[in-house]
């Protein structure tokens, strides 16, 4: 079975600073891959390269076998197939939660509000936010906002979901409700790539963990290996600092 997403030699620089120094990564359909590493190691940038928010300088990204990193390719249709959730939620403050969620399906997929009413309500209720559909983001807690952000990405029915440290900005007691959402998605078989600091969570649900160090994947493997018996000294050093 060929992989859903294959990165080969992906490089990205900002000015003089090369943040991704040749990344190779394969993600199977339905897999959950966790990216761990210190800040500045390139986790965020890598995710933003995958959904083409940042244009890649070198290397290829094969989605279902087609190279989406080709220069000059229109990124918009690709982005509609890959969902992303951000550390600071980035909800649209001038719209209600429901409007936030319905905007992209209406504009990109051409669906009407009446069409979307039922599936969107179902999503909100599935994640215990049924009574918050008409609220504005500044009326919601951090955890609620992040869950709405996840629903917003899901409404586009993406094939892959990217999560960029989505619990780092949350109060500890709100982290749990967001992780529950991730568990639920995992159970459904969504292909997910997470950059995260939640080591216990990664250990529990990840299929593959990649340790990024200074723009390269230094080590990758199943969680038991990475957390239990890391090969590289720097991996062990990092883990000893955060665990």
């Amino acid at each position, binding site marked *: 079975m060929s992989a859903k997403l294959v990165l080969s030699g992906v490089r990205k620089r900002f000015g003089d600073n090369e943040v991704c120094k040749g990344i190779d990564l394969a993600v199977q359909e339905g897999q959950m891959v966790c990216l761990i590493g210190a800040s500045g190691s390139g986790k965020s940038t890598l995710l933003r390269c995958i959904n083409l928010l940042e244009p890649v300088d070198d290397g290829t990204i094969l989605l279902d076998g087609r190279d989406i990193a080709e220069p000059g390719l229109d990124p918009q249709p690709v982005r509609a197939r890959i969902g992303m959730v951000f550390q600071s939620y980035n909800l649209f*403050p001038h719209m209600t939660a429901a409007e936030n969620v319905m905007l992209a399906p209406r504009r990109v997929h051409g669906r009407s509000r009446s069409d979307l009413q039922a599936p969107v309500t179902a999503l909100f209720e599935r994640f215990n936010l049924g009574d918050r559909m008409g609220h504005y983001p500044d009326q919601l807690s951090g955890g609620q906002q992040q869950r709405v952000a996840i629903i917003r990405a899901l409404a586009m029915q993406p094939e892959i979901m990217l999560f960029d440290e989505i619990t780092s900005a949350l109060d500890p007691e709100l982290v749990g409700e967001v992780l529950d959402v991730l568990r639920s998605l995992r159970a459904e078989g969504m292909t997910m790539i997470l950059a995260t600091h939640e080591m216990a969570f990664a250990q529990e649900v990840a299929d593959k963990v990649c340790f990024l160090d200074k723009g390269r994947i230094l080590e990758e493997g199943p969680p038991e290996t990475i957390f239990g018996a890391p090969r590289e000294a720097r991996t062990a050093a990092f883990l000893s600092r955060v665990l």
Partner: protein
Amino acid sequence: MSGSETTAGGLSRRAAYEARQRKRAMRVAAGSTAAVVLALVLLVPLAPGWEKVQRSFFNREVFAKTFPGLLEAFLTNIYIFAWCAPLIAVLGLVIALCRDVRAPALYPLRLFGAIYTDVFRGLPVILVIYLVGFGIPGLGLPRPWNSPYIWGSLALILVYAAYVAEIIRSGIDSIHSSQRAAAASLGLNEKDAMRFVVLPQAIRNVAPANMNMFIALQKDVALLSFIGPVEIFRQAGVYKSLMANFTPYVGAALIFLAVTIPATRYADYLMQKQRRART
């Protein structure tokens, strides 16, 4: 410790103290205001030239005679404002968007926007009114296309659109790039991202600055009088000249304020309401 005692009326110690301070401040303010007003009312008429000033500026007879004509002239101000304001908003938005295009192929648009705002923010309005109001019709346009109403209004629109464009542009810039990133990551194209995500927020953010612009526009409408149209301040000038008296200007100012003050208060109220509704 008696720090958290309440008084007999149920107020905390601090609240009672602050209430006393407020009452005292009110009394001082009322007293001093009354004293100043009394001084003005009693002392100003004692000035030697007061009678002449009153006859020249606050003349009841002249006021009564000129008020109806001034009201009629004010309609001209209202019309001009009514057709300029929406066009300024539209052109300002277009120029702001021109300045914001990112595609390299559209660079000329960006350049055009920058030159436009530099030029029209730099020129005095009255100069543009003369150049456009007399100059363009002077090239040989037939009537009614050479009307000063058309070209004078166009001059106002060109100048004010430059200011509004800059205000909107700063509003757009003030929207954090993470909003655009979120919109892009959902698959929205640039046009939809601008239209549904960035612009609504940007325009709401700069609404107070824009409202100040439109208040200034209300006053600058009077500049069209230089190229012919008889608006309220020109009409006041005609009366002043015919009667050798300045009271018509006082009348014109009163009419003007009667409209602009409620307008600005209402605009403030709308802003407050919008802010309150979202908390």
